[in-house]
């Protein structure tokens, strides 16, 4: 599990190249590279822009580490709920 946390942190750091925030270009790259297997519409840049606007709490046009984590948390929760749901169906 420590490895998973490390992955979450290093993925952000690699995409931001050491900066504090992701600009929209790097955010788009990150989503396409990392979430294409999980989320729909990752190939549409307008959908990603829409998502970025939703995440952008302080409206600075960038995605901070905290804003990035809220996306991870959201997706992980959705994945978990789906998993629980399918378990309940199976039993």
């Amino acid at each position, binding site marked *: 599990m420590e490895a998973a946390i490390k992955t979450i942190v290093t*993925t952000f750091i690699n995409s931001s190249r050491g900066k504090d925030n992701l600009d929209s270009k790097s955010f788009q790259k990150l989503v396409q590279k990392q979430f294409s297997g999980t989320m729909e519409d990752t190939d549409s840049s307008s959908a990603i822009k829409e*998502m970025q606007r939703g995440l952008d709490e302080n409206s600075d046009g960038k995605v901070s580490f*905290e804003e990035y984590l809220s996306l991870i948390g959201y997706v992980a929760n959705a994945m978990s709920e789906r998993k629980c749901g399918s378990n309940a169906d199976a039993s």
Partner: protein
Amino acid sequence: MSNRVQRVHVSLTHSGAAAGAVPFYKTSAALLSHFCSDPALLHRIGLPQPCKLKQLPAAMPSDLETAMQLLITVFHRYAAKDDHNNTLSRRELRLLMENELSNFLKSQKDPHTIDKIMKDLDANGDGQVDFEEFVSLVVGLSVACEQCYQTHLKKTARQ
């Protein structure tokens, strides 16, 4: 809710002093309170509810997807140890932290760390930690890691 999370300060470094005390759940409560319970936000992020996850898991998951899968698997592995299969009891949380976060726990000198974390994570006070509450632990640890990294960067830049 935000008061609840700002009480705990832990440091990830073994020396304890190097990076200073990091506000542990500084952001997690604020994050959780909206990304989990506010349906309007799901629309704002462009993910209608129920969100547009793909029906089938990817054949070649990315690093990040693998990491998220792992978090879910770990959570459910420990959650299944008693009757409440979708939540962690205090005992299960202790087991999870001892086995999965041993390096983190080693840096904690306070023997009550786990009790404090349990109290802080259990947002609805039912004595059980559900997955949403568990995610705030992951968020807190990730923020702490990132801050350690930034401190490290600044230190190396100064040298």
